[in-house]
C-alpha cells in the first residue's frame, strides 16, 4: 500500500479477485512495485474501455505472465447505437442516412452495400446510369485512400511514430476536402441513394480531383521513404500478429489481413459490382502474413486506388451532363435539389411545377416524400470490398416502404475476433501492433 498512497490516480484496493490497481497515466512504477510485493507472476490487465488510440472504444482483457500475453479477449459494444433497428423505422432512402454513420472511416462503403442490396430487390440493377456508377467508384476509391491513411497514421502513432500520424492526417484532409466539394459533407454523406447518387458533380470538381492525384503522387512516396525500410518500424511490425490463410478462412477474415497471406481475394476483381470490371488495377498481396505485410498492402492499395480515380476522372470528363439517377421518378426522389439561401432543398423549378402546374405532380411528390417507395418482398446480400474486407448488407423487405430488416456484416466486427489468435503468446506491446494491423473501426464493430 505504501507504494501507491501518494498517487491519487493509482490507488490500490483489495477485492475478492485479488489486488486491483488503477492505472491512468505514467504511474507504472507503483504498479510494478505493488505487483512485486504480491509475489505473483500472473497479472490480469484490463485495458480500456477507452480507445487505445483512435480505433474507437475497445476493451481488452489481457492475462499476462511477466510481459507475455497468455490470454487476450475483447470486450465490445461501447459504441452500439442501434442503427439497424432504427433503419426499420425510416423509409428506404432515409436508411442511407443511418448506415453511413456505422463505420465512420468508410461511409461510402456502408451506403453502397446497402443501396446495392435495395437496388437488387427493386430489380433496377441494370438501370443505374453510368455516371452514377462512375461517381460511386470514384468516391469509394477516394474513401479507400482516406481510410488506409488513417489506418497507417494511427497504427504509426500507436507504436510512437508520430510523424506518420501527422502526415497521414494531412493527406486525409485532402480526401475529405474532395468529399466536401462533391457531397457537401466531410463525413456521414448519405450521398449514394437507391437509384444513383444524390447530386451531379459540382463545377470544377474534375480539376480538383486531378490536382489531388498529382499531389498524392508526390506525397505517397513519403510514407514509403519513412517506413518501408525503417529498422525500428520493421522491428515492431515484422512477424507480429501473424495469421495464416487457414486461420483467416476459419475466422472469416478478409481484406488486407487475408491478402497478406498471399491470397489475392478482392471482391472488386472476383465478384465485380458497380462496374469495377471496367477499370484497370491490380490486387496487391504480400506473403508474410504479418503486420508489416498488411502495412505494405495498404500502402500499395492506395496507389491502385489512385489509378482507379484517374480512370474515373477521365470517364467523368466524357459524361458531362449525363443523368446520375435512375429514370424512374418514383425511386429517384429527391433528385430535384438546388442550393438555396437556407442550404440544400427542393429546386425552385420543381416547387413551381408541383405548386402551380401539375396537381398530379404534387400528389406524387407528397406521396413519395411522406411515404416513400415500396420495395418488393424478398432478401438480398450484395457484399463489397471495403478497406477492411467484405462488407455486406443483408436487406430484407416485406413489400413495404421501410426495410423489414437490415443487417450489416461488418469486416471490423469479424476481423476483431482474430485478436486472441494474433496476440496470445506475444508481448504486451505487440497486442497494440496486431490490433492496429487489423484496423478495426469500432463504429462498424458495434453499429
Amino acid at each position, binding site marked *: 500500500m505504501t507504494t501507491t498512497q501518494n498517487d491519487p490516480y493509482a490507488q490500490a484496493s483489495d477485492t475478492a479477485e485479488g489486488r486491483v490497481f488503477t492505472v491512468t497515466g505514467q504511474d507504472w512504477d507503483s504498479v510494478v512495485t505493488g505487483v512485486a510485493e504480491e509475489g505473483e507472476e500472473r497479472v490480469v490487465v484490463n485495458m480500456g474501455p477507452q480507445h487505445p488510440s483512435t480505433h474507437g472504444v475497445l476493451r481488452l482483457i489481457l492475462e499476462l505472465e511477466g510481459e507475455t500475453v497468455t490470454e487476450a479477449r475483447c470486450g*465490445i*459494444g461501447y459504441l*452500439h447505437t*442501434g442503427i*439497424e*433497428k*432504427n433503419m*426499420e*423505422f*425510416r423509409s428506404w432512402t432515409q436508411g442511407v442516412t443511418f448506415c453511413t454513420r456505422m463505420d465512420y472511416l468508410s461511409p461510402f462503403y456502408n451506403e453502397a452495400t446497402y443501396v446495392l442490396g435495395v437496388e*437488387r*430487390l427493386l*430489380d433496377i440493377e441494370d438501370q443505374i446510369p453510368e455516371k452514377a456508377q462512375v461517381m460511386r467508384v470514384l468516391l469509394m476509391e477516394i474513401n479507400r485512400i482516406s481510410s488506409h491513411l488513417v489506418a497507417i497514421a494511427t497504427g504509426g502513432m500507436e507504436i510512437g511514430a508520430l510523424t506518420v500520424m501527422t502526415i497521414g492526417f494531412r493527406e486525409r484532409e485532402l480526401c475529405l476536402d474532395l468529399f466536401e466539394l462533391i457531397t457537401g459533407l466531410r463525413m456521414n454523406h448519405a450521398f449514394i441513394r437507391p437509384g444513383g447518387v444524390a447530386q451531379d458533380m459540382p463545377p470544377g470538381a474534375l480539376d480538383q480531383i486531378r490536382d489531388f492525384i498529382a499531389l498524392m503522387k508526390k506525397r505517397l512516396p513519403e510514407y514509403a521513404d519513412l517506413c518501408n525500410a525503417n529498422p525500428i518500424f520493421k522491428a515492431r511490425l515484422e512477424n507480429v500478429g501473424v495469421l495464416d490463410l487457414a486461420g483467416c*478462412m*476459419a*475466422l*472469416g*477474415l478478409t481484406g488486407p489481413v487475408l491478402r497478406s497471406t498471399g491470397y489475392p*481475394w478482392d471482391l472488386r476483381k*472476383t*465478384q465485380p459490382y458497380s462496374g469495377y470490371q471496367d477499370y484497370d488495377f491490380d490486387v496487391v498481396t504480400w506473403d508474410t502474413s504479418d503486420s508489416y505485410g498488411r502495412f505494405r498492402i495498404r500502402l500499395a492499395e492506395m496507389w491502385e486506388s489512385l489509378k482507379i480515380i484517374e480512370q474515373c476522372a477521365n470517364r467523368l470528363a466524357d459524361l458531362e451532363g449525363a443523368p446520375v439517377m435512375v429514370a424512374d421518378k418514383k425511386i429517384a426522389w429527391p433528385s430535384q435539389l438546388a442550393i438555396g439561401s437556407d442550404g440544400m432543398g427542393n429546386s425552385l423549378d420543381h416547387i413551381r411545377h408541383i405548386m402551380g402546374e401539375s396537381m398530379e405532380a404534387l400528389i406524387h411528390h407528397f406521396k413519395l416524400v*411522406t*411515404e*416513400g417507395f*415500396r420495395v*418488393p*418482398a*424478398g*432478401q*438480398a*446480400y450484395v*457484399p463489397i470490398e471495403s478497406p477492411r474486407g*467484405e462488407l*455486406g448488407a*443483408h436487406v*430484407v423487405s*416485406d*413489400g*413495404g*416502404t*421501410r426495410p*423489414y*430488416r437490415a*443487417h450489416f*456484416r461488418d469486416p471490423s*466486427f*469479424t476481423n*476483431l*475476433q482474430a485478436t486472441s489468435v494474433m496476440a496470445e503468446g506475444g508481448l504486451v506491446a505487440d497486442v497494440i501492433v496486431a490490433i492496429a494491423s487489423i484496423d478495426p473501426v469500432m463504429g462498424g464493430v*458495434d*453499429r
Partner: protein
Amino acid sequence: MSPKEPGEFPEVTPGTDPDATDNLPENTLPVEPGALAPEVVEVRRGMFGVEGSGDTSGYGGLVRPVTMPGGTPRPYGGWFDEVADSLGAALAEAGLPNAVEKVVVHRGELTLFIRRADLLGVATLLRDDPALRFEFCSGVSGVHYPEDQGRELHAVYHLLSMTHNRRIRLEVTCPDRDPHVPSVVSVYPTNDWHERETYDFFGIIFDGHPALTRIEMPDDWPGHPQRKDYPLGGIPVEYKGATIPPPDTRRAYN
C-alpha cells in the same frame, strides 16, 4: 412437402414465377389460383398504424398479406442446379435426405431452407465436399416474423465458396417458444461473435456455442432489442415550435 426420392429436393408446383409477388400492384392482391403461392408470413389490416380511432377514411378496411417469395421449381438455372445436385447427392450419402425444406431462387440469389436439426450436418457437407467447398461463412443474421406461427425466428447464413466463386444463403427457422438452433461454430469458427450477436438481439439460442453471452448490449440488459415486439423507444423532439413524435409512433404505411 416430403421429397419423392432420397436426395431430391421437394417438388414445387410448376408454372410459377418466383417474382410473382413483385408484379402485384403494391403487393396487396392475393395470388391467382394455379400460380405458385408466395409464402404469407403476416396479414396486416388498416393503414397508418392507427387502431381503434374511429377512422372513417376507409383505409381501416385495407387488408394486405405480407408475402415472401415462394419455393422455386427445377431447373433453378446456372450453377444453382450443380450445387443442388451435389448437395442432394452428398446429403443422401450422409443420411440426411430431408434436410432441405425448400429452395428459393429470387433476384439471382439461391436460398436453401434447412431443417434446423440438420443444420450442422448440412454446413459440414457444404464446407467439405469438393464440389461444394463453401469454406467461408459471412456470419449469421436474424430476422423476426412475429406473425409467422411456428416459424417466428429465422437465422440466415451467407456462405461463400472462394474455390468456385459462388454464394448461397441458408435459412433456418425456429418457433418463438423453442428458440433453439444448432451452433455452427464448430464448422465455421467465425460465427462465434455472429451467433452471440444474433442471440443478443433476437434471443435465438445457439446450442453448442462455446460461450453464448451478450456481445453488444450490457450483460444485464432485459429483452432482445431487434425483435419486432421490442419498442424502438425515443422521446418527442421540439423543433421550431412544433413537436415531432418519436419515430416508432409516427404514421406507418403498411
